């Protein structure tokens, strides 16, 4: 046991780890929002509800089909992503020609409905979800205890984030996406089915949210409002990073998680507000966000 700036190492590294965990969720969720915003020009307020749905579907698969965590990591994003595809086909595609505000209102209303329905059936006390057997326990590093599951969350989330970045920035498919973001009319006139690409992009972004939900299930309670609380912070993260920047969303997500963790150590009173304070400052100095391109 040693001290850094008068803080016991145990506390400091503990909070750093917690910060990284939160950062993993911020990054995954703001990445999904950025991908969706880039392509659909819609701020997806349903994102938090879709994250919650991910956790619930994982719980449901375990409860009723005996399908555990590892199955859920694969099945849940597909199932919830598919509900996203349906939402896009039924509602969102009618809004693209209108102001941003309509997409925001629709997705916000949808979030309230989804959360209401889940609360009606499951109450709001929360359901427990078992950690996978293989990831229980942890490492004692001497200066701190490192739970295996948390390490897994950080590594897996980082892998998903960087893979997504790679696909969008470095592959042919990603080039199509970037081009369609810039000039959908021309891309379509080259023979590319842009509407289908938009639908699948929304499904993918929703799938990312659901994946985060599965990863959250063993740590936090599975609870109809779990997304509503988190998503407010994630929107602040997105504002700070800049809408539509993929790498910006990832870096900002992890960084702000860490900043929040450190604030808990050094100035606990501000830990709940620090992200919003940063958001206000960034909005004043760089309204497009740290990584955002001014339109």
């Amino acid at each position, binding site marked *: 046991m040693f001290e850094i700036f008068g803080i016991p190492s145990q506390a400091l590294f503990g909070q750093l780890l917690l910060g990284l965990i939160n950062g993993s969720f911020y990054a995954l969720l703001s990445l999904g929002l950025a991908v969706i915003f880039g392509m659909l020009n819609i701020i997806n307020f349903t994102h938090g509800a879709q994250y919650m749905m991910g956790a619930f579907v994982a719980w449901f698969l375990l409860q009723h089909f005996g399908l555990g965590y590892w199955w859920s990591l694969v099945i849940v994003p597909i199932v919830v992503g598919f509900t996203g595809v349906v939402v896009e086909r039924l509602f969102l595609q009618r809004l693209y020609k209108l102001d941003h505000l309509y997409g925001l209102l629709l997705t916000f209303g949808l979030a309230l409905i989804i959360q209401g329905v889940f609360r009606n059936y499951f109450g709001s006390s929360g359901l427990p979800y078992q950690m996978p057997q293989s990831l229980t326990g942890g490492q004692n590093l001497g200066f701190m205890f490192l739970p295996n599951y948390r390490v897994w969350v950080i590594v897996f989330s980082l892998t998903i984030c960087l893979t997504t970045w790679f696909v969008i920035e470095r592959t*042919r498919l990603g*080039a*199509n996406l*970037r*081009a369609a*973001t*810039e*000039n959908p*009319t*021309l*891309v*379509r*006139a*080259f*023979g*590319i*089915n*842009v509407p289908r690409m938009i639908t699948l992009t929304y499904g993918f972004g929703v799938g990312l949210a659901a994946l985060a939900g599965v990863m959250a299930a063993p740590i936090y309670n599975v609870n109809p409002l779990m997304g509503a609380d988190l998503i407010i912070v994630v929107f602040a993260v997105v504002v700070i990073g800049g809408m539509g920047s993929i790498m910006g969303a990832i870096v900002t997500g992890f960084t702000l998680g860490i900043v929040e963790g450190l604030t808990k150590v050094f100035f606990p009173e501000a830990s709940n507000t620090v992200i919003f304070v940063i958001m206000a400052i960034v909005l004043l100095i760089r309204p497009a966000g740290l990584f955002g391109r001014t339109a």
Partner: protein
Amino acid sequence: MLDTRMPLLSVNDLQAWYGESHILHGVNFDIFPGEVVTLLGRNGAGKTTTLKSIMGIVGQRTGSVRFDNQELIGKTSDKIARAGIAFCPEERGIFASLNVEENLLLPPQIRSGGLSLEQIFTLFPNLKERLGSSQGTKLSGGEQQMLAIGRILRTGARLLLLDEPTEGLAPVIIQQIGKTIKTLKAQGFTILLVEQNFRFASTVADRYYIMEHGKVVERFENSELDAKTETLHEYLGV
């Protein structure tokens, strides 16, 4: 002169609107396989709108656009592209978020018979040198135009719609584009060219249509050029 061949593209009573404004008021013309046909006309005559209407990217259009025995009116632009038409827009449409190579490879191959990358680089050697360039829009105007033409040659489209490819370019580059159009014609491409630069057009075109106020008002063959000089001056004010 009566033509017994089947036109590759046949535009009949084409009308188009941007929102409330009625822009095309019944455009009629034909293009036969292997031809280079030029649409001439003053600013705002409706040349670009005609190309966009063929391509299916204006708000509303009526009439008939027959291509290769298919009716294209009512089809979405991706289907029209897949029928075998490729479009090079007036503003060139190079993507800032794509590097040069990605810009070049963006339009998908819709059928066989397109040019290989090697053939495209033979036409536009500059493009090969700039392939590693980070951002498509960092190229010079001339290079961007070559990229905009080059990328649609890979697709296997048989009809190319080129909207003012020489606009704002230096004479040497205009020459290079002229040479390219002749090469493409020799390889069997059919080309619909929109031009303000009549002198350039006269070096490549088989036939001309003059547009005014959203209609085709005059048609003549390259052989009638001398006889039509007066008329041309009247319509184009050159």
